[in-house]
């Protein structure tokens, strides 16, 4: 199980990579392993605004359907169109090719509430035992 140390995490198993004013968001390696083979991803429209806890995307696997929640307040800048034809990217490369959206960060203070890699790793260890 990988927990890259340049990322921030949420309890709901999303990861966030901060690049300037933009947050790249996806789901973690643990999340994809729990979901199993992903077969469909519903992506938001560019320009839509989300607040923390709002569902911005839906990921469907052979096992289940899951909402993906926005970790921060922001506006969708870009979505990963590749996922429409190749949702399996999320399984194969959860932290790179499997990114889901890019959002502008409206309130940088919110980033401080997110989990560090260590905090997230211990959360996963708790949950899987």
């Amino acid at each position: 199980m990988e927990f890259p140390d340049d990322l921030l995490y949420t309890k709901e198993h999303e990861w966030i990579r901060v690049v300037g004013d933009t947050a790249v968001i996806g789901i973690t390696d643990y999340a994809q392993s729990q979901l199993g083979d992903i077969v469909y991803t519903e992506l938001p429209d560019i320009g839509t605004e989300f607040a923390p806890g709002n569902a911005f995307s839906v990921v469907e696997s052979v096992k289940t359907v899951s909402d993906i929640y926005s970790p921060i307040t922001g506006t969708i800048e870009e979505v990963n169109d590749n996922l429409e034809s190749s949702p399996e990217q999320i399984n194969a490369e959860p932290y790179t090719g499997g990114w889901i959206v890019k959002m502008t960060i409206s309130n940088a203070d919110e980033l401080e509430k997110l989990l560090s890699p260590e905090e997230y790793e211990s959360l996963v260890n708790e949950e899987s035992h």
Partner: protein
Amino acid sequence: MRENVGARGLIFNEPLIFDISREGRDGASIPDGVGLPEKKIESLLPKGSLRDDIEGFPSLSEVDVVRHFTRLSQWNYGLDGGFYPLGSCTMKYNPKINEDMASLPALNNLHPYAPEGLAQGALRIMYELSDYLAEISGLAKVSLQPSAGAQGEFAGILIIKNYFESIGEKRHKIIVPDSAHGTNPASSALCGYQVIEVKSGSDGLIDPAEIEKHMDDDVAAIMLTNPNTLGLFESQILKITEIIHKKGGLVYMDGANLNALMGIVKPADMGVDIMHFNLHKTFSTPHGGGGPGSGPVGVTKKIAPFLPTPVIVENNGNYSFQYGNKDSIGRLRAFYGNFGVMVKAYVYIRSMGGDGLKKASETAVVNANYIKEKLKGIYHLPYDRECMHECVFSDKIQGENDVSTLDIAKAIIDRGFHPPTIYFPLIVHGAIMMEPTETEGKETLDSFIEALKDIAAKAKEDPGSLKASPEKPKVGRLDETQAARNPKLRWRAGQKDG
């Protein structure tokens, strides 16, 4: 141990019907020399009623067709063939007398437009069935119109919406516990409500304090299932329904798990205002591909005026449809519901009687507890307490050897049983949900338990072998991912099989 019921037999391959077609072959011929004139179809029907040739339309002889469909039917697994412990689905045996009665020509051949005077028997069956369901639930009135459970829920939520409109209140939210059936939040959302998900407590039950926290005068209703999807009875139900009622809300009960309650508890006595029944679960009519469902909806007196139209009324032994109720949510579908299914449920209730229905519920609960006790410790039981009509295990123990719920389910197929429900309810990781129903004898339960013990032993000694299962059916483990990512839903002329 009895011999594994999943022994291998001869199963025929069978291509698609299009692929066995041969030009010029057909199934019927009119003998020559009988004096019937032969005419071109174009001279008999107007042009608008003729359809174009269908490319690839199969031409086959009678024997080809009979063998084709007989072979396909042999790939099927149903209740007439074996045990079907699919949790939350109540796959009980469907007694043949139900089919006999539903096939009576007087019922089977009755035209839906027959005048009421010529359909008194059918109307009486519907009237009495509504009455029986009202008696079983303790509710005042029941409409048989919804075509299946999900439409029953839809009707129920529409009734709730219309009720609040009629008293001039605008409420926007519905509370749904996280152990709910997926259709509950879906029905709420479809009717425009915001769904408030409430987490279950560590005992698997709804915590009244959580409901109290979310209940306000913007909440129209709570949708709950009792017993819940963990197979546990919501012991705080009276407290929960009181909290909802105090703030003017309504209580909707999903009737999926009614098989645990018949003749023992009336939902209305638990504070339920509205519920749907699944005739294809609790009342022994075919479930799934075996026939359409039926999801009657029952309500208290207060909200009875909102039931779908028409309702059946009785006057001096005469039955008729009543239309034009101004508060009604209207019609849900053409005609009056799935009538054949109603006949089967009616026959079931009449042949069981009140005592029989109670005994069915009691036996269903005993059977589930028997499985639970026999498999406890061998499989992880996340909520270790008395269950109702179903029990939920997980793959936690087998997971240590990298054997998942899916592997266990596939291995059950090799041992001659339909797998239980898996990965539901969502609040249990790797859930395996078993509902034996009352129609199975101890011998069947014992051989199922033996099969599961055998799988647990394999998971320890030779976990890799379970990954290869199922090996005995006609096809092995299907590629569910490919099927979902790249579905092929219909045959097309000239399309290569691939």
